[in-house]
């Protein structure tokens, strides 16, 4: 085997979204040799898609806002499944991180007296989101990118990391990847590795995530022996577009239903009337006439069932699709076109109207939308120390969406961007401390490298076999149908069985062509991660026999106070890799100090 390109660093950061960039900046400023490795070009990471803002209790708009309130909001949103110390640090440090961005050139929208203005968002008691119009994520990533570039941090772009390397003691000693451009292998030897690889959205058919969100970090951590927690907690949006392809994954805000949009099945029936749960019966309209009258006169009519809580809507859509009354592409219809005038729709929903018109030629004033549950955010991830972001394997750190614990069972809007900044920095610090304290230069174990390379290039050597695109599609279909927004025991067991079959098929994947920028091969190398995280999600979902936050079980519709005290931890103890089993166990949440407990109990 020819000698591979190899690089030696103190810290390598895998992933160049907000968290990865922030971690790399921190480690570099500590004077360590730092490299940033990312699958795409620099500045293209999924962080650019975040619109709302950065949640930080700066109190610029409401002086009464402070970290205690932000902490309480975050814990409540996460249904108390959060790691309390992470939520606390996050609330305490977010304002400093935002101010720091400003010193690096970010231009946030201002208050009349010249400070950073803040906007309201669901779940936050006060207006708290620092923002730049609806492109806050872009501002954040561009600011961090420009900072990183001006510091001269080494960036390895379009370089996909396949697997982490470990030394004899089990500590992480580097990583192996390949250049997408050439397909050539590159080996990193490093004292510490920070994972900042983002989400897992590509496990699902309908997702707002980009192609990069394949759960590489989650999977690589597990393959290196690290724990992951709360993998069952995936945030879905009940109404994302499922068709046409050009807008698939775009989220359709609840505002459309609030302004008169009605959910209909393939028979044209407003099915939400069939799904009014007992506890909402008193306040929900029972006839279409009453529901329609409610929009005009809230006082004398009851609310339309189209505006039932998120999980009820999701459950209803799920049932209709499974009963065969869904739209041609696996969603349901959201019809505002036949119910409101074109003028009214354009006036009330201008950006939705323009977005659909421009991207898909879909005129929402003339035709119904096809919507369905869409994967949006991953709460679960690598189990980390709340202060250093250290994973359970020495030398490994994780920040951002790949790390678990911060958001508990459900994430509040705006907390993801502040999460990236606060814990990106802490991961950089943690990795720097670890690297400084680590004796000697870790060296890559050639046998491990060879094994990883052999597995990665195996698809070229097989004659015939599975098409990676087909396998990926089947995986997405399985996850969307059986481990989606509404889950139940039998379906999850069925999913695990199917995932087992898919793991076997993954061993037979064949790709044609060469290694240079070959998307078929690139997808084939993503499949192991996708399979591992999918399995972990399904196992976690099966284990958590309750409904809590983003995790909803049809067969256990309510929360279970006992399960609210535990995390489901998954790890690979024996054999590691996508084909190996994953062990799962329940472990108690860390105990919260009394003074923080008291904060949670304060009323509004």
């Amino acid at each position, binding site marked *: 085997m020819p*000698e*591979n*390109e*190899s*690089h*030696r*660093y103190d810290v390598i950061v895998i992933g160049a979204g907000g968290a990865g960039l922030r971690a790399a900046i921190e480690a*570099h400023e500590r004077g*360590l*040799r*730092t*490299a940033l490795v990312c699958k795409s*070009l*620099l500045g293209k990471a999924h962080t650019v898609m975040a619109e709302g803002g950065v949640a930080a209790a700066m109190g610029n708009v409401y002086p009464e806002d402070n970290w205690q309130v932000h902490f309480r909001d975050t814990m409540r949103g996460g249904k108390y499944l959060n790691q309390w110390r992470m939520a606390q640090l996050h609330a305490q440090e977010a304002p400093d991180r935002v101010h720091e961005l400003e010193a690096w050139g970010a231009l946030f929208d201002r208050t009349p007296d010249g400070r950073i203005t803040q906007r309201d968002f669901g779940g936050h008691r006060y207006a708290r989101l620092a923002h730049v119009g609806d492109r806050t994520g872009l501002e954040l990533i561009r600011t961090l990118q420009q900072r990183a570039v*001006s*510091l*001269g*941090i*080494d*960036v*390895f*772009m*379009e*370089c996909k990391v396949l697997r982490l390397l470990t030394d004899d003691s089990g500590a992480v000693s580097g990583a192996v990847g390949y*250049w*997408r*451009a*050439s397909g050539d292998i*590159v080996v990193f030897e490093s004292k510490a590795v920070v994972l900042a690889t983002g989400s897992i959205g590509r496990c699902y058919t309908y997702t707002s995530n980009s192609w990069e969100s394949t759960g590489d970090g989650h999977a690589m951590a597990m393959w290196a022996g690290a724990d992951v927690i709360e993998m069952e907690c995936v945030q879905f949006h009940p109404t994302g577009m499922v068709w046409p392809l050009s807008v698939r994954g775009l989220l359709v805000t609840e505002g459309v239903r609030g302004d008169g949009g009605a959910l209909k099945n393939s028979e044209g029936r407003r099915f939400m009337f069939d799904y009014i749960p007992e506890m909402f019966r008193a306040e929900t309209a029972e006839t279409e006439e009453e529901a329609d009258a409610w929009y005009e006169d809230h006082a004398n009519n009851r609310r339309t069932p189209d505006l039932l809580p998120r999980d009820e809507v999701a459950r209803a859509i799920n049932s209709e699709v499974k009963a065969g009354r869904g739209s041609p592409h696996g969603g349901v219809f959201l019809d505002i076109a036949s119910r409101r005038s074109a003028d009214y729709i354009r006036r009330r929903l201008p950006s939705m109207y323009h977005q659909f018109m421009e991207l898909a030629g879909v005129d929402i004033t003339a035709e119904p939308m096809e919507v369905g549950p869409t994967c949006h955010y991953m709460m679960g991830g690598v189990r980390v120390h709340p202060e250093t972001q250290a994973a359970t394997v020495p030398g490994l750190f994780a920040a951002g969406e790949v790390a678990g614990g911060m958001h508990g069972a459900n994430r509040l809007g705006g907390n993801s961007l502040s999460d990236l900044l606060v814990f990106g920095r802490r991961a950089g610090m943690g990795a720097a401390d670890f690297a400084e304290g680590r004796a000697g230069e870790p060296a890559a174990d050639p046998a491990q490298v060879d094994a990883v390379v052999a597995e990665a290039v195996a698809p070229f050597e097989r004659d015939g076999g599975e098409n990676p695109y087909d396998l990926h599609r089947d995986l997405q279909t399985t996850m969307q149908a059986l481990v989606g927004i509404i889950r139940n025991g039998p379906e999850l067991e069925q999913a695990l069985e199917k995932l087992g079959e898919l793991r076997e098929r993954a061993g037979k994947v064949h790709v044609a062509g060469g290694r240079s920028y070959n998307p078929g091969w690139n997808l084939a190398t993503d499949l192991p991660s996708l399979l591992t995280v999918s399995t972990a999600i399904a196992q976690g979902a099966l284990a958590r026999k309750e409904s809590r936050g983003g995790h909803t079980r049809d067969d256990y519709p309510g929360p279970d106070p006992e399960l609210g005290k535990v995390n489901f931890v998954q790890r690979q103890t024996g054999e590691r890799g996508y084909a190996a089993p994953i062990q799962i166990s329940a472990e108690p949440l860390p105990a919260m100090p009394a003074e923080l407990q008291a904060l949670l109990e304060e009323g509004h």
Partner: protein
Amino acid sequence: MDVAQLVPLAGVAIQCPAVPGRACPAKEVVVTVDNATATPVVIGGTRGGPSAPTLRQDRWWLQPLVTVTILTAFIVYSTWAIFVNKDYYVGATLHRDLISPFYSPCIAASCVPGSVGTTVVASWWHITPALIVMGGPLGFRLTCYYYRRAYYRGFWQSPPNCAVADGHRRYTGESRFPLILQNIHRYFFLIGLIFNVILTIDAVMAFRMPGAGGIGFSVGTLVLCVNAVLLWLYSISCHACRHLCGGNVRSFSRHPLRHRVWKLLTPLNARHMQFAWASLVFVAFTDLYVRLVASGVITDPKIF
């Protein structure tokens, strides 16, 4: 900096020269205004796509063609109008006071009687008086950011249209003589303002109807007024004007007045192209109208 010594950029790594087996040194050099260097690139990297001047299938040639046609027509007409040296003034004998914008201000000894606005400045000038004054407006339009775009595309084919190959092998843009002189546009803008004032006075004077009731309003008056308004709009929508009036400040909030002016000029600046064409065509039309009246081809109808 010798480009040949620079490390070729391997693949998509932006930092590390991809030398097998060697670590990247941590880079300590921070770019400052002073040490920022030229960009090291490998010259002649193989490009993708078919080697055709353009793959555009739309009528991309239409826009430069229209530009060339209108500008050529204007140049031909205005050259003729400048050198014909007659029929540029409608005076008391026709009960009007209309002067062609090409000949205003008429300050040469050769000016026809009555056309001299104030005094004869260039008493030694005996050929066409239009030549003395054409420099100002011509320079303003030649160095105008919009016209530059139009003639670089239309006449110089550099490029003829977007994503269509440049018509020239070598290109130095506006970085050398003579095109570096484009940078004095702001002075031509100021000179242009003087002409705007004079042509505005001409428009006011066009309300005079000697021997036909003193003050009145004819089609000729209207033409001169519209011409003056269009020239003002063209001038104040100019990019140099927008810069000088407020665009050059770093902080608007510390210069509220200049910010207000800038805000006023910005939407006009967005229409600079339209004003450029409208005022160009209308200047020629104004000359033509005055010429037709002066030569007796038409009479200038009085409106009130």
